[in-house]
């Protein structure tokens, strides 16, 4: 084994291994950073519609046309 092979074996391979490990550890962060970029505009998130309530008869339920039943306003 000459000097060049020894350097490659004892420094090159560990260095290459370190680079691979670093890339594997950091790759998810690089991908996520693209998703985290804030788009700015308004955001609307919704759950699914209301689940049926077995304790209430359909006749007790208000029609969909009557929508707003209350709520509050606040500022901080």
């Amino acid at each position: 084994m000459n000097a060049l092979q020894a350097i490659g074996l004892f420094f090159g391979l560990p260095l290459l291994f370190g680079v691979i490990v670093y890339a594997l550890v950091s790759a998810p962060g690089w991908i996520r950073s693209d998703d985290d970029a804030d788009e700015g505009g308004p955001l609307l998130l919704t759950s699914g519609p209301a689940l049926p309530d077995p304790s209430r008869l359909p006749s007790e339920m208000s029609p969909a046309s009557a929508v707003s039943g209350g709520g509050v306003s606040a500022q901080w």
Partner: protein
Amino acid sequence: MHSGDMLGIESGLSPISQEERVDLQSVLARARTISGYGFALYVGPLDGGRADAVAQHADLRSPAGAVLVAVSPTQRRLEIVTGVNVAVNLDDRACELAAMSMSSSFAAGDLAGGLREGIVMLAEHARHPRVLHLDDPA
């Protein structure tokens, strides 16, 4: 509504990251499971004040059984709109409590955390009363 409202950035609130959006989406789903009502969250400009929030609520699917939490970080404004069916269990006093909790978190700069806590609080209050034989069939 203008599109310049940067989800909290301009008001000093922490902006909502993609991770927090996913988390808030799961909180909304959990709120629906807890209460049985649909929940929606709007973060953006509310130039028309409460009227904007009410209009946004009316656009939801089954609005009578839905709760909308609308926040404008730039205007430092919070609106909670409840549908007529939800208002049976979730009165304005309970909404005020949730609004106070959320406002204090927003004032501390924690937009996502305040929303998370407020939505869960609303869901807990909106939970319909237990009905003998229906909720406990055994």
